């Protein structure tokens, strides 16, 4: 599934990486706990989280993850968005909650990491 399709499905705002929305995603990891992401790192997965601080982007960097979907109306601050831009990441933000976001994406064939 392309990030552009995820953007349309979940009515996302694109916060960073508007030029990389044709990237294909087949796997996702969803958590507000970054240690959970680090416990099963899956390069190129989509990180789905409500955690908006700078550690969300740093965790993605460490895990070779290049796209993050912020759920339930949360938005990272400018410093966090800038760090993502500097690292050529895609940041999407949706008002949809974590459970419904995961359900909708799973329905479209996105698999979980574990």
């Amino acid at each position: 599934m392309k990030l552009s399709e995820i953007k349309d499905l979940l009515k996302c705002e694109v916060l960073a990486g508007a030029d990389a929305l044709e990237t294909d995603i087949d796997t996702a990891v969803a958590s507000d706990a970054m240690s959970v992401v680090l416990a099963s790192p899956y390069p190129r997965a989509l990180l789905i989280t409500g955690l908006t601080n700078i550690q969300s982007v740093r965790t993605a960097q460490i895990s070779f993850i290049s796209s993050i979907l912020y759920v339930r109306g949360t938005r990272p601050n400018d410093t966090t968005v800038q760090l993502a831009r500097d690292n050529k990441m895609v940041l999407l933000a949706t008002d949809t909650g974590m459970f419904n976001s995961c359900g909708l994406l799973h329905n479209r064939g996105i698999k979980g990491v574990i």
Partner: protein
Amino acid sequence: MTEELLRRTFELRGRDFENAGEKSTEVTSILKELDIDPDVILRVGVVTFEAEMNVVMYADKAILSFILTDDEIAIEVADQGPGIPNIELAMQPGYSTASDEMREMGFGYGMGLPNIKKNSDEFFLESQVGKGTKVYCMIRLNSNG
């Protein structure tokens, strides 16, 4: 005979949530430039990032030492902090003494030390209550743990 190729030392500050993780991304950037296997970089990144977050959450300050040789990467994080009274308990996945504030940062779910151990080929931890904790990890360049 093992040849040392690179040695770096970083200072880490306790409670510095804003910059936490910065040194780990610096370490992984160095390894990427040296064309190290991405699987190894991933494991080194998880080890250093989790160790860095432990320092930020619990300690006053620490020194992170990173040594690359031709067959392994050694990471040592020695902190000045409260120490760990029961190491066996601290190593249990899910056990945590973190505050709500720490969990709001996305960490403190009792997975840090188990994650560090899981990604290391050799792992050693020693701690003295009231003084500090030292974590030593070794990751081989030609293995995938």
